[in-house]
């Protein structure tokens, strides 16, 4: 069946004109999605593109503010995940949402047990349940004992069980939300075999992922979202990797970039402040070499999921690497917790400010002073006046909008919270500052301020590792750009490289 021309079959799922806003802020604008039976359709976009919001609308978690949804020609509007399931839209999540304490067969039929006994009432027909489970599992080519506990099997198998469960509900549409993040290459191949098999049976599959090579390996068509808007829909043969990346990242309006980019000059001979050799963690990151010098800004470029945050966490001691070695000033170090890294002069401004950053009920002042206080220890306490002084300094420097430094940080807007967390790390005046997506969710003017801050800090001698999905930013400030893709390093580019050069490096077919 040739899906790229002419669409011989009618679509099984049509989303048109989907709008979604949260308190007046649009998150999805006029988004469409056409899904045909017997195809694997990749849904792609960067953070904030609206992918997850669209999926939530599809699966009934959120209600769209406008638009239409048609399933097999009928207008539908699922108002809960259960309703979506009943309509035939089944979802398999990244974190397997099954019950580890039950058997495989029981997980597949939880809540819908085949019954026997008096009036088909309350007794479970285990024989039928096990047999049906076996059939389903065989249908996707899996050969396991369905009576064993789900937790006895690795995640890869658990995901296949989740797919089997979707099949048992006679799904018309199967949504896979980042299914391969915790799988290794072999398991990914097995999953793809299963998907191809199901595609052959006529199932429509939505495949949300950020791994480029996987998209090209298994999908038939691609829909790209950017900043909540629909960018386009292509057959996979019609859209090369570079074009895909360009579609996803686009070109930010250079509202801030009226001056020609300043290419920072850097002294290559300076000794390395931090050196990572073959640093990696099985399953999370392949061995990577990295060198950062004092006063240098190293940009870590790559798409979502390429391993940048994992690298940052390894450098900062949040996770222990099982491969490679880390050296600070030439001395080998091992960090068993963040405090070790902080004492060595490192700092990490994390990506997820809500879970890893802000301490919600505490004030802005306390949040900003936290890391500094932690390093000083319990005894030498920053008095309230000192905390206020520090906080006010950074409030002014970074333009944090808050009525006072004593306001609980939870009341600030997302962008201002991000600035406050950044202030926390700047306050300890580290020798090396790792910034993981520091400009996410911040307005254009503020982004500019932060970028200038970074350059200032570097000039003053601080080393900076700068992670951002906004390629234009990375390209503008970095002395060196380290490019990551699919959890490994694919190369380095010098200062002044263009964004295209980065895309090329990411898209190149590397072994």
């Amino acid at each position, binding site marked *: 069946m040739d899906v790229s021309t002419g669409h011989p079959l009618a679509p099984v799922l049509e989303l048109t004109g989907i709008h979604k806003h949260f308190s007046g802020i649009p998150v999805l604008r006029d988004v469409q999605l056409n899904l045909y039976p017997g195809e694997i359709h990749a849904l792609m976009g960067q953070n904030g593109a609206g992918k997850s919001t669209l999926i939530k609308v599809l699966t009934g978690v959120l209600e769209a503010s406008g638009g239409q949804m048609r399933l097999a020609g009928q207008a539908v509007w699922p108002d809960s995940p259960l309703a979506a399931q009943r309509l035939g839209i089944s979802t398999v999540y990244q974190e397997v949402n099954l019950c580890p304490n039950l058997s495989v067969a029981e997980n597949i039929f939880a809540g819908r047990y085949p019954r026997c006994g008096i009036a088909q009432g309350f007794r479970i027909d285990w024989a039928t349940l096990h047999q049906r489970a076996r059939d389903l599992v065989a249908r996707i080519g899996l050969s396991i004992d369905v009576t064993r506990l789900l937790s006895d099997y690795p995640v890869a198998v658990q995901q296949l069980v989740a797919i089997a469960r979707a099949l048992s509900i006679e799904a018309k549409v199967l949504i896979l939300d980042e299914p391969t993040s915790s799988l290794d290459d072999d398991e990914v191949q097995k999953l793809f075999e299963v998907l191809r098999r199901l595609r052959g049976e006529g199932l429509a599959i939505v495949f949300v992922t950020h791994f480029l090579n996987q998209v090209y390996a298994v999908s038939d068509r691609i829909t790209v979202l950017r900043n909540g808007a629909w960018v386009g829909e292509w057959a996979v043969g019609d859209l090369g990797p570079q074009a895909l990346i360009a579609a996803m990242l686009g070109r930010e309006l250079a509202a801030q970039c009226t001056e020609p980019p300043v290419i920072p000059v850097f002294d290559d001979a300076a000794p390395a402040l931090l050196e990572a050799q073959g640093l990696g963690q099985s399953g999370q990151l392949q061995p990577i070499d990295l060198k950062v010098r004092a006063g240098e800004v190293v940009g870590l470029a790559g798409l979502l999921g390429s391993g940048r945050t994992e690298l940052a966490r390894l450098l900062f001691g949040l996770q222990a690497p099982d491969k490679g070695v880390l050296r600070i000033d030439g001395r080998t170090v091992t960090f068993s917790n963040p405090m070790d890294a902080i004492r060595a002069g490192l700092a990490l401004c994390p990506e997820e400010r809500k879970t890893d950053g802000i301490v919600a009920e505490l004030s802005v002042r306390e949040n900003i002073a936290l890391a500094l206080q932690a390093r000083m220890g319990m005894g030498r306490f*920053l008095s309230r006046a000192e905390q206020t002084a520090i906080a006010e300094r950074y409030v002014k420097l970074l333009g944090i909008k808050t009525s006072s430094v004593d306001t609980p940080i939870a009341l600030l807007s997302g962008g201002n919270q991000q600035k406050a967390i950044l202030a926390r790390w700047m306050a300890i005046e580290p020798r090396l500052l790792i910034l993981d997506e520091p400009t996410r969710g911040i307005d254009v003017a503020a982004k500019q301020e932060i970028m200038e801050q970074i350059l200032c800090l570097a000039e003053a001698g601080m080393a900076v590792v700068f992670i951002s999905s906004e390629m234009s930013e990375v390209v503008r400030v970095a002395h060196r750009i380290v490019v990551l893709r699919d959890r490994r390093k694919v190369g380095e580019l010098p200062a002044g490289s263009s964004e295209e050069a980065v895309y090329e490096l990411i898209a190149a077919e590397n072994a």
Partner: protein
Amino acid sequence: MPDAPSPSSSLLAAALRHRLTWPLVTLALLLAVNTAFNASFLHVEWRDGHFYGSLVDILNRAAPLALVSLGMTMVIATRGIDISVGAVVAIAAAVGAWMIGGSVSGGESRFPLPLAILGAIGVAALCGLWNGLLVAKVGMQPIIATLILMVAGRGIAQLITDGQIITIYYAPFFFLGGGYLLGLPFSLFVLAAVFAGLYLAVTRTALGLFIQAVGINPTAARVAGVQSRRLVVAAYTFCGVCAGIAGLLISSNVKSADANNAGQMLELDAILAVTLGGTALTGGRFSLVGSVIGALIIQTLTYAIYSLGVPPEINLVVKAVVVFIVMLLQSPDFRAQIGALVRRPTAGGALS
């Protein structure tokens, strides 16, 4: 657009919003109720070289509870709970009594008194350390971890006292729980000392900041470099120490160590006091003063029920109902349910 609020009304609004307001109001109400039923309730006189009266009684009896509540506050602030404090009180009392010895002559004790006191508190600290390690290092849920000591603790206390109730005759020991200093019960000074020490630690060092951070968002605290595990272990150890001191005060007051009955239900009273004082069971922000007021509320409540002539069993019922109402009010789901009920009658109208 309404006029800018006048200074007095904004002051009132601020006062109403203060976390200590409702506990204080409750306490005042209880004192009023007590006075209504017993005209001489507020009467304090100087007798036998010290202050004497119902209020003094309440303060004296509330001291051990307040101590345990302070320790419990620290534990709850880290998102934990310690239901073994009653057992630890019994253990501390037993150790103290054993080290002092029950010699009827009352003239000497087996070990010097300071050593006995240190021994009792030390053992209590070990109990707290045990709990802390189970929670922070092994990773058990706090209620289960402390359940173990709650079950075994009384047995341990009984072992120390050999199954007997050790009566203490050593007079200097009575000073702890029954003596008076400057006219006021000595136990108040003990409480004041512990409170002052804790208060200074919490406000003059980073302890308060770190504990709150750990309780509100343990992950973020860890990323920021806070040593959360050590803090949790320290919180439970401190709770043990408080229970130990309380055990000494209690046994000194009744001049005996009863491994079976000492500290019965104390953990429930302590949790209740902490909650009444404004600290949420989910951890994070805490109020030391609130917990002390909470302990006073419970003690005054007990007194009120007693003076009302109500049988002691209703004490438990009332206490339970109070806990319950506080919990309900703190539960967002319940508030939503009540809110929905309240809002229903106003249908339509000029509401935009």
